[in-house]
């Protein structure tokens, strides 16, 4: 195929004939005989037929493999996340935004104790591999960014700040290896502080303990009277 396409060009160069005149196809048999006689003798080429979709499959497989640089970056990110002791992680949808706006927003978030990072899903999947957070893999589709915070109460700040920015939308949050969906997160954000929640939990647990004590007490209180009644009946 390549030979055929290049041959006219070679002829043009040699003969200096304008390429504007169309050549008759098929060429005259004399010409074909002449060309066949002049054709260099080459070893026969074996053309391999590639099944459809194979190249695409190979590309997909190759894109799933991690290069050394990517593994090093993933390790670096994981170490940094562990070292900084982040407790809240929000996976967000990250829409295109001018660089200047992004830079200002990043700095603004940093001033409120939130770190903005966008490493790409491939790196993030490697970072979260073999951790309880690996269940977030299903969310890592498309263009994503992560927000990290050290304090649980920053959950509220994350929601407030992302509401202000129209190019970032939180999809799911993770607090101390526990997944919090957006509805729950909004409920939690309504609380004035996380201490309220703790107090509420303590109160519920306290109620249960008190209930158990009362139930046990009532049984012990009733037992003598029951025994008395039984003894009087026997008499």
């Amino acid at each position: 195929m390549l030979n055929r396409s290049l041959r006219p060009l070679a002829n043009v160069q040699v003969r200096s004939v304008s390429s504007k005149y169309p050549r008759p196809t098929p060429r005259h048999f004399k010409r074909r005989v002449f060309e066949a006689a002049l054709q260099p003798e080459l070893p026969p080429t074996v053309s391999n037929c590639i099944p459809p979709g194979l190249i695409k499959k190979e590309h997909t497989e190759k894109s799933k493999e991690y290069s050394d640089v990517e593994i090093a970056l993933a390790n670096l990110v994981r170490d940094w996340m562990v070292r900084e002791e982040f407790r809240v992680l929000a996976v967000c949808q990250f829409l295109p935004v001018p660089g200047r706006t992004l830079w200002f927003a990043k700095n603004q978030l940093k001033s409120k104790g939130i770190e903005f990072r966008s490493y790409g899903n491939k790196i993030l999947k490697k970072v979260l591999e073999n951790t309880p957070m690996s269940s977030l893999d299903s969310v890592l589709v498309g263009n994503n960014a992560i927000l990290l915070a050290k304090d649980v109460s920053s959950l509220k700040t994350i929601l407030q700040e992302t509401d202000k920015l129209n190019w970032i939308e939180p999809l799911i949050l993770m607090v101390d290896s526990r997944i919090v969906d957006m509805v729950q997160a909004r409920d939690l954000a309504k609380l004035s502080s996380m201490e309220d929640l703790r107090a509420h939990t303590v109160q519920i647990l306290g109620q249960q303990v008190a209930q158990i004590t009362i139930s046990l007490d009532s049984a012990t209180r009733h037992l003598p009277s029951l025994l008395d009644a039984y003894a009087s009946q026997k008499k």
Partner: protein
Amino acid sequence: MASKGAARVRKKEIVKVIHGALLRTNIKAQMASAAPPLGPQLGQRGLNVANFCKEFNKETGHFKQGVPLPTRITVKPDRSYDLEICTPTTTWLLKQAAGIGRGKADKDEIVGKLTVKHLYEIAKVKSRDKALQHVELEHICRMLIKTCRTLGIQVQYHDLDPVELKEFLVARKEKVDAQLKELADKKAAKMLRTT
């Protein structure tokens, strides 16, 4: 014939450039003028150049004349604008601190010496910029070290020895003079070349 005439009459197609709202440019303190390149840049965006120059020169009155100032001009649809004048350019500050006027011309050339103390002071100045607000000082210092590398300035941890530095600067001055002379010769030769 008629078609030729029509072609002659037809005007050149003018491609209208749509400018963004933000104009980033470096303007020398107290030296804004309507001359190119600033004048046309502002004029194309529909700003009143004379008024802009007047305001800019007034606002930069506290700077030494000729200090390059990164300026961000946000042009609004009603042709009014927001002017943001940043602190002098990093390269200018570093060059001033190192006492040099020219960056490196060759790879691995050392044109000046600075200590981390200098960088810390420059970082404190730069941190006042709007773009560097809430950025850690360490991060700014790292950026400065990178700029030093591009300029060819050596950054060292220990204090500079004044005698050694003086010797270095004298040697450097001779080298720069030679470089500039070579450049001037080249330029002159190019001007004289007839072929």
